[in-house]
């Protein structure tokens, strides 16, 4: 009786300690995550001189001058629309092309499916970044260096292995009976695709969109070798301009970094649930 009492007391003590340790860990890592971002935001409102005098305190004389200048110097007025175009265009392309191929692979019998599908699956293992030099040479060979088409093509191609994989696996779960009865009613495959497959594949389309929007919006390595003209660049390329010679002009650099950070933060705040779910569903490699 007495012994049992002590064990439960000890158990309770251990449980409290575990909770305390859990909270401490969470709080420490939360601060470590948020403080650098907060520090950046805070200092983006200081003049470079004020930053150099004190970088740990709140801005004494907050100013938006950094943003105005960074926006001009980084040509963000040009790059923002480009980023939106590349992200939206490539995402729509990936989703559409993947669903089409996924439908064919999942629901139309063909001897070509096994080798083709496996080809896409192998692509899951290849990171497109490791192909940037041959891609650069290929794009020059085809005469599409410094074009939006090249950027969109490469982004769509890079997204296809995961897109085709997720789309095919998802469309397999659509009941065959649905498609067969539509066939008996005389519907062609494209009509079935438009009227049955696409509406039923919205969840996988959302997952694919979420994954591709975040990765394409932030992409740097590939677009860096595909375009060199300012009119064609995306935001990450513009932000990178603020390293190097401009990196001592802290005020402007911080404003540029914040400009690069805010759209994705907003996107995350709005679509957090979908993003979290999409990441868990899309974490497939081979």
């Amino acid at each position: 009786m007495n012994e049992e009492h002590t064990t439960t007391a000890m158990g309770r003590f251990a449980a409290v300690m575990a909770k305390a340790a859990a909270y401490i860990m969470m709080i420490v890592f939360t601060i470590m995550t948020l403080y650098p971002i907060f520090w950046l935001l805070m200092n983006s409102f200081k003049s470079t001189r004020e930053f150099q005098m004190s970088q740990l305190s709140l801005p004494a004389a907050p100013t938006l001058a950094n943003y105005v200048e960074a926006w001009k110097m980084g040509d963000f007025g040009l790059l923002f629309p480009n980023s939106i175009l590349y992200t939206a265009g490539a995402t729509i392309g990936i989703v559409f092309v993947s669903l089409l191929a996924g439908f064919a692979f999942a629901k139309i019998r063909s001897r070509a499916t096994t080798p083709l599908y496996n080809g896409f699956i192998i692509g899951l293992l290849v990171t497109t970044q490791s192909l940037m030099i041959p891609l650069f040479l290929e794009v020059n060979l085809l005469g599409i260096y410094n074009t939006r088409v090249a950027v969109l093509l490469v982004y769509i191609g890079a997204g296809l292995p995961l897109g085709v994989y997720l789309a095919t696996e998802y469309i397999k779960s659509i009941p065959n009976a649905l498609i067969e009865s539509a066939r008996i009613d005389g519907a062609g495959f494209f009509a079935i695709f438009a009227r049955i497959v696409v509406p039923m594949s919205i969840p996988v389309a959302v997952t694919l969109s979420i994954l591709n929007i975040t990765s394409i919006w932030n992409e740097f390595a590939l677009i860096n070798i595909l375009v060199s003209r300012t009119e064609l660049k995306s935001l990450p390329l513009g932000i990178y301009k603020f390293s190097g010679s401009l990196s001592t002009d802290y005020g402007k650099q911080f404003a540029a970094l914040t400009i690069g950070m805010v759209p994705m933060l907003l996107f995350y705040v709005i679509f957090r649930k979908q993003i979290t779910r999409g990441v868990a569903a899309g974490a497939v490699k081979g």
Partner: protein
Amino acid sequence: MLQRKHRGIEEGRAYWAMVLPAFLIYVLVMAFPIILSVVLSLSNYDGGKMFGGDAWGFAGLKSYAQVFSDPLFWNALKNNVYIVLISVFGQLPLGFIFAYIIYRKLVKWPGFWQGVLYIPNILSVIVVGLLWQTIFSPNGPIAEFMNTIARAGFQSKLETLFSGAGGFNITDDLVRKMLNLAGPAASQWFTDPVPELKELILSYQGSPHALLINDLCNLFVQKWSPEFLSKPDIAMLPVLFVILWMYTGMYLILFLANMQKIDTQIIEAARIDGATEWQVMRFIIVPALSGTIVNSAILAISGSLSSFALIFAMTGGGPSRVTEILSIYMYNNAFLGRPNLPLANAISLIMVLVSFALIGATKALEKRYGGKEE
């Protein structure tokens, strides 16, 4: 019969019409570059027109020999391995612990912690790289924070000395104590420290006490300018720290999503039968997640090989190329100085093969030792 044949043709046409867009783009972006890198890595192509320009031809395995005998290649490969290791032994365990804490409801507001810890993942790697470059810079916030603390400490010790001396009663003994406090920093200013410092302090008679303290601090507290990113032997550490900072949240999400698939009745039954928290983790949760753990390791490998921009922005591969990873090593061989395109293409192909080999090895390990799941 005729109708069936007609249907077969229609089916075939529809199939290819649907598959071709994906197939053609895929060939253009994945398959053709791989073939191109095979061809060029075996050649002596030196830029210029690929067709109709200067002749270029077969050069055998020369470029591969050159890569494997280049210490910079092995350094870059080593850094890629470090990134995999920090993922497998840093991000994975941390992510697992966070996920476990949230899953077992050891803390309130599960959505909040999860939401916050994932934030770095959605930021642009360029933003993250440049941000941390500034944070780690010699006069960044880490340096300022440490310097502020050091100065405050010195100041309070000075104050104690002065208040012990009771106002402005400057004795040789007090000056000597002050010099002790300042340490070797003092000797660089004076040839004969004690009388010279005493004279200096006495010259402040009449001016505000705070001014004296402030000037003494300026004189004696040495500014620390850490060289996290410019010392070759440690520059990789901040890079690895940032990678840990950035991607741990992803593994948290992966683990948590898969923990939530575990049947809670099993855990409750085990708890009723007297299993401790530790036993629940060891015998129920970890085995159920073995597939996720392998999957995460594979993600870590491919993440390491695909990373480029973070290090490109943060260190540019420097100082003196010690923080180069394979992708940056390849990039520098293709675009910096005298481009060596066969070499760069050889590296490209090696990277593709390395990812196949590593992921294959991980899967083989899973087959051998895993398989508790499903």
